[in-house]
């Protein structure tokens, strides 16, 4: 009888022990994230000022800033979004609503799952061989935007599919019953109801692209950029220009890599400040994505 009691007590103790170990394992990740943010903030805060945002990179760490980097990030993200969003949503709609169940659809699906697992630097090699040297687009905003667009395409496709899959079949049947065509059903019902999920996926994809530097380094983007691309909006006729697409560029993560790989400690402070800006951008985007998901979940109830 006593043996049984100690046995039970021991098992209960082990159970409790694991509850503590589990909580600790969970906290390792959380605390690492906190340590990372605090470390960056402590190092980089002193460099964050208005002039840091509005200066070009420089040989002198105190004068260097991230103007060309954040302008480049915005331009590249614009190209990335215009590539990945329409292509990704259209692919997702095709696979969920249109695709016949056959071997070819299976191949497309396996292929997308595989693309999602391809290391980002491989996309950079593809861009180097194809966009830079075969299509002669150069080391430009356009090349960078396309590369990152293709990189996040699987994320957008998967998010679209998941959002569409959550819509009950009865909604589609109701639309067909009143004579709607397949596209009318998609346009008037499927797309609006899945908008929240799609938007979440798009934001997460873009936040991934903003922090990506390996594929851009591969196309040869690590250069000293102390000028801004031709502005897209002009003061004289025809008031817009696409020259910026072929302009050389730098982006925030590359500027940060440049600074962190220098031996002088003063540049490391700049790297920390740039990293802080980058971190705030990606964490904000992820926060917005979580909020959007929550908002749409609350609004739509089947």
């Amino acid at each position, binding site marked *: 009888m006593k043996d049984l009691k100690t046995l039970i007590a021991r*098992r209960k103790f*082990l*159970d409790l022990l*694991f*509850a503590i*170990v*589990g*909580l600790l*394992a*969970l906290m390792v*990740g*959380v605390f690492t*994230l906190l*340590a*990372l943010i605090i470390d960056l903030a402590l*190092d980089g805060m002193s460099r964050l000022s208005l002039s840091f945002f509005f200066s070009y990179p420089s040989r002198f760490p105190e004068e260097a800033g991230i103007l060309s980097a954040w302008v480049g990030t915005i331009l590249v993200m614009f190209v990335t979004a215009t590539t990945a969003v329409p292509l990704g949503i*259209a*692919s997702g*709609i*095709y696979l969920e609503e249109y695709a016949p169940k056959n071997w070819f659809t299976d191949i*497309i699906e396996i*292929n997308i*799952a*595989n*693309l999602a*697992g*391809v*290391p980002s*630097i*491989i996309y950079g*090699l*593809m861009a*180097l*061989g*194809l966009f830079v040297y075969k299509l002669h687009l150069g080391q430009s905003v356009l090349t960078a935007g396309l590369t990152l667009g293709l990189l996040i*395409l*699987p994320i957008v496709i998967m998010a679209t599919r998941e959002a569409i899959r959550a819509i009950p079949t009865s909604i589609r049947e109701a639309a067909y019953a009143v004579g709607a*065509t*397949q*596209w009318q059903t998609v346009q008037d019902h499927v797309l609006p109801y899945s908008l929240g999920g799609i938007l979440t996926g798009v934001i997460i994809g873009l*936040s991934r692209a903003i*922090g*990506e*530097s390996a594929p851009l*380094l*591969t*196309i040869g983007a*690590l250069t000293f950029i102390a000028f801004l691309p031709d502005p897209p909006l002009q003061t004289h006729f025809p008031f817009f220009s696409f020259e910026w697409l072929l302009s050389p560029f730098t982006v925030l*993560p590359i500027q*940060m*890599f440049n600074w*962190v790989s220098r031996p002088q400690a003063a540049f*490391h402070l700049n790297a*920390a400040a740039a*990293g802080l800006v*980058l*971190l705030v951008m*990606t*964490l904000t985007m*992820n926060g917005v994505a979580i909020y959007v998901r929550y908002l749409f979940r609350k609004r739509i109830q089947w």
Partner: protein
Amino acid sequence: MNQDSKITFKTHFRRFRERLITTALFLAAFSSIVITGGIVGVLVFESISFFQNVSLINFLTDREWTPLFFNPHYGILPLITGTLVTTGVALLVAIPLGTIAAVYLSEYAPHRLRETTKPVLELLSAVPTVVYGYFALLFVTPLLQKIIPGLPGFNMLSAGLVIGVMIIPYVSSLSEDAMRAVPMHIREASYAMGATRLQTSFNVVVPSALSGIAAAYILGISRAIGETMVVAIAAGMQPNLTWDPTKPAETITAYIVQVSLGDLPHGSLGYQTIFAAGLTLFLFTLIFNIAGHFFRKRFREIY
């Protein structure tokens, strides 16, 4: 009559529009195949020129990788050991922590804790990798140097540890999904036999979810192998045939970055090396991705 022809015209127009849209959507989905074709095409095309100059046997057995030196050697082994060591260190962190966290979240954590901790854990994979590189080089390495005296400023250990934390969410979130997919009645049967939560977790839930957990591990491995910026910044960029994680070394990915930073002429043998290295990396991850795909498919089918 007039009315009728109007209707047929409208119907025809609608049918035409539907077909047009279907084709456009199909082309969009097909683009993913074109991308894969582009990747494989570029890698294979440039690698073929490379292997016309360097024999495959040399590539796989030479113990030195010095393609840019006066007396070049083209042995991929040092890059592979570098990749395997950093990945190994990363897995030693991510697999235990990720699995325990997944068991805890799925079987122990109260609802509120799970709902708040999961998004925070996911943020770990949202932090830009270049920021992790900074963290590894300027925070983790100095910290490790206090514990291990004589640790060089660039080493695979700190890069691997940081990658490990970075891939925890990949391991934990898919594992947790797999464990939560295990039906409640299987757990209840275990509890009815008098098992504790710990016994149920590890003797019933984990074995039932094993293929999903395996898929999670494989995803984590594939991420760690392909990780670039952390190793490029913190592990040092010098090929080094060693299994010792406290030494500096170069991974396949870091080598590609190193060459990209320089100014190699297009079409030279040095330029082609990064594609041969890239092809090796692609094949590694492809094997893991395909294996992961089948494991994932299996765990979806079981229940």
